[in-house]
């Protein structure tokens, strides 16, 4: 979760304002939402992902399912794919998850019934970057119709994203081999500070004519973590197909949670449908993204000033909440035990944990770990 420079959770000012508006609105009650969710939320959420001028929206071939966070959106999408993709109830369709990925991806697709979950090359530890060749190679050799979970931006946990040129190559292979793109978009706006930039890959795939799913989370970019606000955006060939898909997703939702929680969706819908509040939100998002970007550049410059062995440009080249530092498990253990700095054994740090107050300490500690421990 995001933290301020004081190391505190941050409820976005626009969220506070909108919550007050909702609280003061006596016409509102706690009635059930429709099964697929609050209509104003669904439409706005998909619009954010695909863009105001999206041809898919204009052509009325976009569907949306309000979900319990990004996880819920992934699960509804996974359950639907297991029932209806590549035949009926084809649990043998391979599902590819990046190596590494958010560990819950595996569990979501496994619990949805898929039997063959594989990894695709992603992180190159040696060069601390994207293993594009490995990735493309895996796609070339994946069975036709395999499902690929793609991180729309701010890859979790590596923070390493393909460049637009690399995305184009990925899309070309996926199109040729009939692979299904399932985007996980948990950080739109939060990564670069720009909604458009962070949605570039998803929009490119849409412009290339793909049918795809995009699981969106509003946990981070709205700071609405515990309200569980998410959306599954479905892009299809035409309105008729999308309508039938949604009717079946409705059945899946009905036996999972019946209908989604209203509070968080109301906050997002109200914000996105008001030009003034929307601008205010974008400003709040940029505040968060800018702080993370600042911490990245400050950490890197300190490590370079200290002369810490190795190269540290990956700290600023990576994007989003997480960074794969390149520290090995022994060095991580040193950080935890000796310096009381907590990070994952993979060397992943949460950039939100950095503050102006602790930057020096963290930089020095990394320096020690790298020079003392091999």
């Amino acid at each position: 979760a995001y933290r301020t420079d004081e190391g505190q959770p941050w409820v976005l000012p626009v969220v506070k304002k909108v919550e007050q508006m909702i609280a003061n609105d006596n016409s509102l009650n706690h009635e059930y939402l429709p099964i697929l969710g609050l209509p104003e939320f669904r439409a706005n959420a998909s619009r954010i992902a695909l863009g105001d001028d999206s041809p898919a929206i204009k052509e009325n071939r976009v569907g949306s399912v309000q979900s319990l966070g990004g996880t819920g959106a992934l699960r509804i999408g996974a359950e639907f794919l297991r029932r209806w993709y590549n035949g009926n109830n084809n649990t043998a369709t391979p599902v590819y998850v990046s190596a590494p990925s958010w560990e819950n991806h595996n569990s979501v697709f496994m619990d949805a019934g898929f039997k063959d979950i594989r990894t695709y090359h992603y992180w190159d530890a040696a060069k601390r970057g994207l293993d594009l060749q490995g990735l493309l190679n895996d796609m070339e050799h994946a069975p036709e119709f395999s499902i690929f979970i793609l991180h729309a931006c701010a890859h979790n946990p590596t923070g390493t994203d393909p460049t637009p040129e690399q995305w184009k190559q990925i899309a070309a292979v996926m199109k040729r081999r009939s692979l299904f793109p399932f985007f996980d978009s948990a950080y739109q706006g939060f990564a670069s500070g720009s909604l458009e930039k962070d949605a570039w890959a998803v929009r490119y795939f849409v412009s290339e004519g793909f049918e795809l799913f995009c699981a969106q989370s509003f946990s981070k970019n709205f700071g609405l973590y515990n309200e569980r606000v998410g959306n599954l955006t479905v892009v299809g060939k035409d309105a008729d197909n999308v309508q039938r898909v949604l009717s079946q997703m409705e059945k899946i939702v009905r036996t999972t949670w019946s209908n989604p929680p209203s509070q968080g969706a109301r906050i997002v819908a109200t914000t996105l449908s008001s030009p003034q509040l929307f601008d205010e939100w974008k400003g709040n998002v940029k505040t968060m993204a800018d702080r993370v970007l600042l911490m990245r550049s400050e950490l890197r410059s300190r490590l370079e000033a200290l002369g810490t062995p190795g190269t540290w440009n990956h700290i600023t080249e990576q994007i989003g909440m997480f960074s794969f530092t390149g520290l090995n498990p022994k060095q991580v253990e040193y950080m935890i035990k000796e310096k009381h700095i907590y990070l994952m054994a993979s060397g992943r740090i949460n950039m939100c944990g950095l503050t102006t107050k602790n930057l020096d300490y963290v930089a020095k500690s990394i320096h020690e770990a790298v020079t003392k421990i091999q």
Partner: protein
Amino acid sequence: SSWWSHVEMGPPDPILGVTEAYKRDTNSKKMNLGVGAYRDDNGKPYVLNCVRKAEAMIASKKMDKEYLPIGGLADFTRASAELALGENSEAFKSGRYVTVQGISGTGSLRIGANFLQRFFKASRDVYLPKPSWGNHTPIFRDAGMQLQAYRYYDPKTCSLDFSGAMEDISKIPEKSIILLHACAHNPTGVDPRQEQWKELAAIVKKRNLLVYFDMAYQGFASGDINRDAWAVRYFIEQGINIVLSQSFAKNMGLYGERAGAFTVICSDADEAKRVESQLKILIRPMYSNPPVNGARIASMILNTPDLRKEWLTEVKGMADRIISMRTQLVSNLKKEGSSHNWQHITDQIGMFCFTGLKPEQVERLIKEFSVYMTKDGRISVAGVTSGNVGYLAHAIHQVTK
């Protein structure tokens, strides 16, 4: 071509269809008796005062929005367990239970269903009463279980077919799962009396069945939360380690906030801890962690003495209004000159009433009188008001005389 060319259009939801048709109707006297949500005597949704107060208190605390634990808000789950089991319950006091927050009743049922699919190896069979809530069957089916039934409702008397139920249950293979509605049976409104519950407890114990209670109307049925939880508590006292799904949608009017809980009564606290760890492993790939808003409101109410008191009064108020509408409907039918026995309307309890009306009669009610209900003759008494009960009685009499 599309990946989805072969995807069939899903059948429309029968209950939603009722509301859709109602909305399109221009008759000023129209009545929506399909709605599964409480309405006040003006036919409007009712936000409880204690809920408004709790919301104000929560807002003033200016809390952050950090993720809840996977199992939910601890103050909420503990209070939910205590509400269901009773503060003096040995099971509650000893800690030999685990309660996780669920997405209202449906989510809690589904967690339980998935848990049983994964860990109850003795059987795949879940026995539902005939009839049961329409969503029970697909929930258990999607969780990978098989559905069976036991006799429950007697359409000839519009009441409980107790001998039929006992006969069927006595034949259920050992170690099967049986689902029971704790109170205010949905859709019939027919509940066993306490002596009958005692016999049911004895037979399920004898057959060594796993008992799954669905309690969606605690407090909302009789107006008394302890009375409505009597069966649940009795079974546990008889040494039956039940599993239980609770909803706060109706009794706190928190419908869209999705506040619910799933409980497993265990042998001891250690078993409860192990069960909890497995429930979390099931929940995480479904939605990671639950929504806070409804749980916080419910927790505030249950854990703040003044609010809890106010809540008990308000839930009794809702239950009393429903009971009074039942009484008025029957007396109005008599006034209309109906010679039928409508006693079942007042014998039944909770939001729903199985009128005994046949599909042709229901169709006439819809077409000729704009009175909307589901084809099985089920009405939501919550949709009846002192302003329209006379019209309803008139309409029913016209199609049944």
